């Protein structure tokens, strides 16, 4: 049985890693290539142009970028097989929390990664660096608002008398429990203190009970709220900031309410057991510590990092629409990835039961 299980896991890992074994190739000491698990798609093109290719030109270190999804599951399989095939991985906040709690990441040597101290404390973890940020914000179809009214908070989102009309939220407990508490009067800074008690969770679900009949759809993919806003299927919805900025520039009267938004960090980390620790540090340093490169990135992808001087490099009008802009960051709460990694399973179970009620 044990034998079978080991084999099964190796096979699972091999399947998870199959696309990469074909491309990773062989790297010798003087011909180092690091394998970086990224998101693929349009983002991969930007990463290649702004970071990977110039980095290889400057240092001689090759970068093999992979299009990956569900990286927590892939890492779990790799660790079980004892053969990590990635050197560096992008990680969402939740993926990071899972990977960190399980010890799948190498500690970061900060004097190597950021010798000039350009990154604030919020961007530095023991075993990862923050490369980007995005927010789950309240998005509003401004032309559907009652005459002369403006929606400015989650309390307004909950106020169906003043602001009638269909609404949507994400089909996840995270963000929504925080939004409910903020709508119920909890200060953004105290959200996780309240949520860490049973009473606090009950309070959030009670508040969600109020809005439940007015939510026409519980979205599961980031494209859905955008679609619903543009079709008039929902007038008010939670959504990811970058997509709403894009929707608005394309001509739909949509606006972002930063107040009470959930600021999320996304990370890059070095995978435990890599043979290219130095190269990986050099790459992460190149990726995160230059305000000029960060500004070039933020101009193309509205998910900025935290390097000092970034907003001096950006036109003010553009900076105003970004989640880590000081004005916007001040109104939001930072999503606590560790809280969610510890509690997601239990709260998701309650969430699913609550939705079916």
């Amino acid at each position: 049985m044990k034998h079978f299980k080991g084999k099964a896991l190796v096979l699972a890992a091999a399947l998870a890693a199959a696309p990469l074994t074909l491309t990773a190739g062989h790297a010798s000491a003087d011909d180092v290539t690091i394998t970086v698990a990224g998101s693929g798609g349009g983002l991969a093109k930007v990463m290649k142009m702004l970071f990977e290719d110039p980095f290889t030109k400057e240092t001689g270190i090759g970068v093999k970028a992979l299009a990956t999804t569900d990286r927590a599951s892939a890492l779990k399989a790799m660790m079980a097989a004892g053969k990590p095939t990635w050197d560096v991985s992008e990680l969402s906040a939740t993926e990071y929390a899972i990977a960190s709690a399980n010890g799948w990441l190498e500690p970061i040597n900060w004097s190597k990664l950021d010798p000039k101290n350009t990154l604030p404390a919020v961007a530095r973890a023991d075993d990862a660096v923050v490369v980007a940020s995005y927010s789950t914000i309240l998005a509003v179809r401004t032309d559907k608002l009652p005459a002369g009214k403006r929606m400015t908070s989650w309390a307004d989102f909950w106020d169906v008398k003043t602001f009638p009309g269909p609404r949507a939220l994400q089909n996840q407990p995270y963000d929504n429990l925080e939004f409910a508490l903020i709508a119920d009067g909890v200060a953004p800074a105290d959200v996780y203190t309240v949520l860490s008690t049973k009473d606090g969770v009950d309070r959030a679900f009670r508040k969600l009970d109020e809005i439940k009949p007015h939510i026409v759809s519980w979205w599961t993919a980031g494209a859905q709220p955008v679609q619903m806003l543009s079709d008039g299927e929902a007038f008010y919805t939670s959504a990811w900031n970058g997509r709403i900025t894009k929707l608005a520039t394309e001509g739909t009267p949509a606006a972002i309410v930063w107040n009470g938004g959930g600021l999320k960090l996304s990370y890059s980390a070095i995978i435990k057991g890599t043979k290219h620790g130095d190269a990986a540090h050099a790459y992460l340093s190149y990726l995160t510590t230059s305000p000029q490169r960060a500004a070039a990135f933020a101009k193309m992808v509205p998910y900025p990092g935290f390097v000092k001087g970034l907003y001096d490099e950006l036109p003010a009008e553009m900076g105003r629409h970004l989640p880590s802009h000081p004005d916007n960051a001040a109104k939001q709460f930072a999503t606590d990835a560790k809280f969610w990694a510890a509690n997601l399973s239990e709260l998701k179970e309650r969430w699913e039961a609550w939705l079916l009620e």
Partner: protein
Amino acid sequence: MPAADRHSILAAPGLLLLVTFFVVPVGIVFDQGLFDPAFTTAHFERFLARGAYMAVFLNTLRVSVVVAMACLLIGYPVAYFIVRQPPRRRPVLMFLVLVPLWMSILVRTYAWMVVLGREGIVNGLLMTLGITDQPVKLLFTTGAVYVGMVQILLPIMIVTCYSAMTEIDQNLLRAARILGARSGQAFARVFLPLSLEGAVTGTLIVFILSMGFFITPALIGGRRDMMMANLISSQVSQTNWGFAAALAIILLLATVAVLVAARLLTRRLVYAAAKTDTP
């Protein structure tokens, strides 16, 4: 015998593929659901202990049964209509039936959002005709899930029924009429029993596909229209693989159970139908 041996080599590549990419993964799923790392039924107990999971399971069953029955009731007459057409017209009609299969499920589901939405085609029509002055809620309902899934799966039902019906010698119907049966009788006592096998196969294929449906209920259903596949996906991304595997096993066993029960029942039905024909 040696000839049969030689022929069995032809099945080897398919068999190898099946073992590597189906039998082994299913084995892994069973292993993950039942051993963690020692033998445990904890994952199954968790499923049984929570009413919500059972509700999702029952909902999956209900949706699959309704969709399979709706496809049968709509698809069987269409297949019958096509098979009764002159031979030259049949391929054209079958081609039209198959066209929607070339479009991805995702695209067709989004198309239903355009049709059923608040500012969609149906509501636009209703409001222009003055039947309602407020948009009717059609999207994000269980009804939308049924409509979307039936539209997606109907071609499969029609094709299965049609291919069974083309096997039936049309002269048998003629013979029945000559022997004095009215056209309804000829259909009910000759055609229906002969095409029953195909109709059941089609219904079961649609049922099996429905049991694993994922995208359509998530995109156009309401909050209660959660399917087992949605639940499994959410558990996998939370790295609760043991529980996800247990859910997959439950889904698989339920599907197999329905399959076996339906097969036994049809055998009896076909037998009974055949028996009425003997004097």
